[in-house]
């Protein structure tokens, strides 16, 4: 029986191919010249270059954090490349001008940009290595005043918006990885929903790392103006390589008065092989600021990466604002994840909900780390936290570190935690009814994650379930 769970967990990573495409890459290493080079490549205005340089100088004074429950050899930041872009002669006007090789890559990934464009009603921005290669549906969105484009383009076309909000949620001094990102970020997505507009389709970004020896440092900035609504999804994959590659992204969300931002992630970076060789180091800072009566909801399904270090958080600054965090994280083989959230209650009558589901298989190690802070000003704040861990086999681990800080006596907090093992008894029960062990495991795991999956947009919920079954192939015991 333990064999079955192991087999299920050990399915190969199917996105591990490399695209042979000519790239424009910076030499390895990190110094002010590289920062200037990146900025120059992107034709950036002086203020942005200065912001990058301030970040870089700040970064030089910072130390890599060691408090997370993850273990890896020291990263040589001078060995990595900080810029790589598919060679393109000029700016693109339509999808038809995208390099066919690149388009084939996205088709292989199941993201047919053409199809997306025609049928699905999902607007996609595709980021390949460091550069956004195609954004679909932009004309339709523009009619509503919605801006959805690559970050570089936003810097050119909407510099006032970018300048106003860049770093307003995650300042360039925030933490080692966010500061590094601020210095060398390459591209990413930018989105602005005007006052009172409900974005009529899901917006989606797919990230792909391709070139060897490069880090990916994208930056996403989403602004929902007063009363606006947007649902946003990101997905990511990478080739299989023996080396570890660094991914240090920053996502900033701004929900102005009465706005709603729903941000969903299906993270499937290459997790490394069965022995733990290779894989992406995913060190990501995600945070949203919620103004009066607004709502920010994070939903994440994390199945990839060798190491995940990620805490999508909400600053509930405005009165009556709402923060939510729904997470499924799966670690298999030698994957490690230290993930969770921070909910910072500042405004009156603010509410937050945390539902975290951790699944460990193989030698996977998983930590939930969550902080709930209720500041003095947050009268009548409420928080509900639930952290459940599921263990498959007896070589994996699950750890829970909830931090709670309450400075206002009117706060109401609830915290529930559980750890369970996929029992022999549950498996036997399913099999005795005629269900195969593989199907039983996937059924039990999906049941465990149901509260989170129902927060995902329908088509992605289906994708997430499939991904989970694939990631688990070979793992029950």
């Amino acid at each position, binding site marked *: 029986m333990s064999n079955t769970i192991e087999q299920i967990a050990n399915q190969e990573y199917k996105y591990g191919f490399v695209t042979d495409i000519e790239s424009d890459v910076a030499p390895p290493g990190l110094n002010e010249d590289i920062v200037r080079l990146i900025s120059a490549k992107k034709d950036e205005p002086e203020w942005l270059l200065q912001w990058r340089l301030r970040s870089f100088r700040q970064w030089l004074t910072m130390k890599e954090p060691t408090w997370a429950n993850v273990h890896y050899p020291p990263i040589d930041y001078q060995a990595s490349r900080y810029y790589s872009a598919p060679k393109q002669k000029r700016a693109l006007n339509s999808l038809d001008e995208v390099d066919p090789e690149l388009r084939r890559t996205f088709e292989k990934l199941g993201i047919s940009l053409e199809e997306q464009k025609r049928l699905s009603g999902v607007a996609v921005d595709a980021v390949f290595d460091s550069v956004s290669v195609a954004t679909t549906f932009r004309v339709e969105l523009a009619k509503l005043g919605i801006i959805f484009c690559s970050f570089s383009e936003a810097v050119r076309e909407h510099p006032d918006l970018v300048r106003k909000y860049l770093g307003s949620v995650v300042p360039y001094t925030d933490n080692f990885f966010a500061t590094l990102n601020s210095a060398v970020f390459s591209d990413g997505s930018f989105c602005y929903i005007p006052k009172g507009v409900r974005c009529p389709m899901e917006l989606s970004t797919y990230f792909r790392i391709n070139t060897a020896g490069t880090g990916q440092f994208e930056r996403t900035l989403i602004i929902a103006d007063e009363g606006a609504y947007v649902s946003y999804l990101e997905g990511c994959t990478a080739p299989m390589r023996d080396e570890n590659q660094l991914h240090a992204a920053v996502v900033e969300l701004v929900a102005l008065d009465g706005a709603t931002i729903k941000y969903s992630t299906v993270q499937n970076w290459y997790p490394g092989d069965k022995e733990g060789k290779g894989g992406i180091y995913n060190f990501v800072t995600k945070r949203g600021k919620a103004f009066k009566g607004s709502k920010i909801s994070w939903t994440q399904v994390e199945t990839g990466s060798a190491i995940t270090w990620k805490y999508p958080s909400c600053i509930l600054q405005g009165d009556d604002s709402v923060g939510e965090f729904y997470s499924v994280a799966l670690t298999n083989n030698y994957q490690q994840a230290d993930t969770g959230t921070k909910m910072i209650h500042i405004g009156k009558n603010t509410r937050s909900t945390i539902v975290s589901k951790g699944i460990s298989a193989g030698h996977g190690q998983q930590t939930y780390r969550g902080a709930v802070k209720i500041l003095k000003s947050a009268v009548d704040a409420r928080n509900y936290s639930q952290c459940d861990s599921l263990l498959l086999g007896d070589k994996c681990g699950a750890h829970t570190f909830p931090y709670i800080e309450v400075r206002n006596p009117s706060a109401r907090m609830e915290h529930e935690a559980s750890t369970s093992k996929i029992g022999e*008894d549950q498996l036997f029960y399913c099999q005795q*009814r*005629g269900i195969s062990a593989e199907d039983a495991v996937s059924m039990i795991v999906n049941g465990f994650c149901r509260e989170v999956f129902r927060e995902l947009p329908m088509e992605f919920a289906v994708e997430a379930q499939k991904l989970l079954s694939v990631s688990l192939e070979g793992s029950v015991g």
Partner: protein
Amino acid sequence: MLEIKNLHAGIDGKEILHGLTLSVGTGEVHAIMGPNGSGKSTLANVLAGRPRYSVTAGSVTYEGKDLLSMPVEERAREGVFLAMQYPVEIPGVNNIYFLKAALNSVRKHRGEEELDALEFLQLARQKMKVVDLDEAFMNRAVNEGFSGGEKKRNEIFQMAVLDPKLAILDETDSGLDIDALRIVAGGVNALRSEKHSVLVITHYQRLLSYLIPDFVHVLANGRIVKSGGKELAEELEQKGYEWIEQEVAAGA
């Protein structure tokens, strides 16, 4: 249907059944009775293929095939059903979804077409009446938060839907009040036909008042020590198990 010959088996290396022999014909209802620790549940679990139980000697033939060499799910698909003594909870997995997956894997194995959601719902509704469960019950997670009686009725409901050729009831009556007992017995009686065999494992006679067995066997120290008709169950109820044990001791 089922031929058990000289079965030696146990759990975690400890032998509990010491040479059990039993033959169950098609369409027959057999009751296995016996004191605690006599090996009743071991027999049920070995027949279903539960992990940790192992067979050291003997054979079990089911419809002419070697039952012990089949994986757990194959036994189930071939029509062996075990109503468990302690049904487990599977949080977040919808009861009806679970049962549909089970039925369709059985049907697929039999070469029958899988039922779609609508056809399945029709079947399920019809079978639910047998065990007096209401529809809200279908949309709850498998056994989660069920009372002891509900869990047992759910087992019988599953049995009714899966329509097994050989149903094994492992102390399904334990912990049930008289109404639940009647419902469970009703479910089993509904299954009774010349095509279905039932093995009822119980400590008490009371279930057998609603569910008249064709044969009653007494299990003691891992062997069947006495077999008879339904009168044997009544005799046991009056005299207790000690009488049998003495008789066996005297004969030995």
